[in-house]
């Protein structure tokens, strides 16, 4: 319990968490407006258009918190570990809590409130930016629709999971620069390409569903990526939740028995 308090205080006692939060909100609001505008004002007579309509458009846009914003909780989670190594506070941390498994679990749990805040703020930013456009010029904002509410709520849940996966990933790659580079490269480049490539063939599209981003889409039940031409097949919600938890747990175990097993110098 004391470890949990300490880890939470570490996260909120520097500026990073709210700086990233502001960037997240601004970025999601911007993308929300752009996406909503592209759906609302798209010419309707164009054949082969991928433009979504009605409640599908609303769900796809509201799912941006995950589809576009997930790099933020990943990064803030990874920082929970990597800053300790970068600034060598890990020494003091292990002096007051030598049980390294306890330390890692405390870090995983302490990011839950941060993930919640990121999820709620990110969702508010997307909805705040896009709903007026959808309601005013499109087919409606659908904010009372049950499937839309599920997307919004699960968007928050999935953000919490991303933050925890970030912590677990940081425990595997404790070098801060390396961790951020890998997160950016994977989320912006490797995974989208892998999803496209694997999704293009019948034999491999099942694998694509298990990629973390695809699993998160499965949990939300809305895939902007899929709607825009990628593999549309998603995991069921329970299966997607299990896959995401497995990513967090698996990476954390790996980190526990690599980084956190070593001597700390």
């Amino acid at each position, binding site marked *: 319990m*004391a*470890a949990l*308090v*300490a880890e939470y*205080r*570490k996260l909120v*006692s*520097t*500026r*990073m968490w709210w700086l990233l939060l502001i960037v997240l909100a601004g970025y999601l609001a911007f993308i929300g407006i752009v996406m909503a505008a592209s759906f609302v004002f798209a010419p309707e007579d164009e054949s082969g258009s991928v433009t979504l309509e009605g409640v599908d458009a609303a769900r796809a846009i509201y799912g941006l918190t995950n589809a576009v914003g997930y790099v933020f909780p990943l990064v803030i989670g990874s920082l929970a570990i990597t*800053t300790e190594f970068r*600034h*060598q*506070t890990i*020494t*003091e*941390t*292990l*002096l*007051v*809590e*030598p*049980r390294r498994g306890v330390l890692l679990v405390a870090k995983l749990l302490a990011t839950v409130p941060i993930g919640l805040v990121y999820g709620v703020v990110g969702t508010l930013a997307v909805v705040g930016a896009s709903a007026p456009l959808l309601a005013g010029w499109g087919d409606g904002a659908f904010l009372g629709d049950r499937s839309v509410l599920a997307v919004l709520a699960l968007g928050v849940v999935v953000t919490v999971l991303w933050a925890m996966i970030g912590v677990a990933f940081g425990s595997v790659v404790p070098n801060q620069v390396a961790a951020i580079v890998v997160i950016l490269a994977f989320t912006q480049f490797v995974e989208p390409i892998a999803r496209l490539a694997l999704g293009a063939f019948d034999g491999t599209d099942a694998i694509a569903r298990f990629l973390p981003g695809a699993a998160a889409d499965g949990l939300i039940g809305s895939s902007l990526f899929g709607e825009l031409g990628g593999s549309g097949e998603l995991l069921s919600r329970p299966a997607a939740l299990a896959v995401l938890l497995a990513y967090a747990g698996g990476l954390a175990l790996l980190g526990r028995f690599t980084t956190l097993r070593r*001597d*700390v*110098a």
Partner: protein
Amino acid sequence: MGFTGTGPTLSVAGLGKTFGPIRAVDDLSFTVRPGAVTGFLGPNGAGKTTTLRMLLGLTRPSVGRALVGDRPYAGHPTPARVVGAAIESSGFHPGRTGLGHLGVYAAQAGVDRARCRELIEFVGLADAGDRQVGGYSLGMRQRLALATALLGDPPAIVLDEPANGLDPEGIVWLRHLLRAFAAQGRTVLVSSHVLAEVQHTVDDVVIIAAGRLVHASSLTELAGLAAPETYVQSPAEQALADLCRARGWSTRPDGAGLVVTGVLAAEVGAAAYAAGLELHQLAGRGVGLEDVFLRLTGGGGS
């Protein structure tokens, strides 16, 4: 700071650590008693920090064991309340305030924020507590590290090179503090690569070199190993050298004169007077503790 009682004995037995082909610490055994300040001395790279890290559960020994009282450091339920430690390589997040830093670790030391404020004042950082550590000087970081070590009012205190970066006033303050801790019955272990730095602070010394124990005793016993030194300078250099050789004294050149080891100034003066030798300088250099230290650690060069 109201500790009364007896701190735990720190003991290291057959401790060894190898990094690849390098034996950083080799079959090291010593104990640190409560109620005294023990200096843990050795040249840079002797294995001091590695030993302290093993004592504090940060590094796993290759062989042997290190105990705090009856068990390893990590075996204590709330280690920060048993040993307060500041290790040289430990760092601070530059974007956290001094008080924020203490606040982070306060929970696991079982203390509240009032204690953090009390400590930040105690170490002389009252005005800097709300500033970010990124703007702290080395001396201020040392003081903050000390405050962190003292959070849980621990009965044992382990400090790695605590005088580094402190101003002379800070060093005197630290000396009084460590003496007071020992007087309260706490166990105090302080590492340094300069004997002179802790000479006026410590009761006992543990000296290592190249990972091995070379000497462990009280400071008084260490001083017993030291020979007095006398600096002497004469315009008749050859006559002076002849005199020393005739008396069987060992000397080494030092600037324009000679340093005679193992002989008091009065004796050198008397011999020169008897030989009718003109002297321009004659000065006792006291007991050369630093020389003993250098000799023991193999850095004497003679």
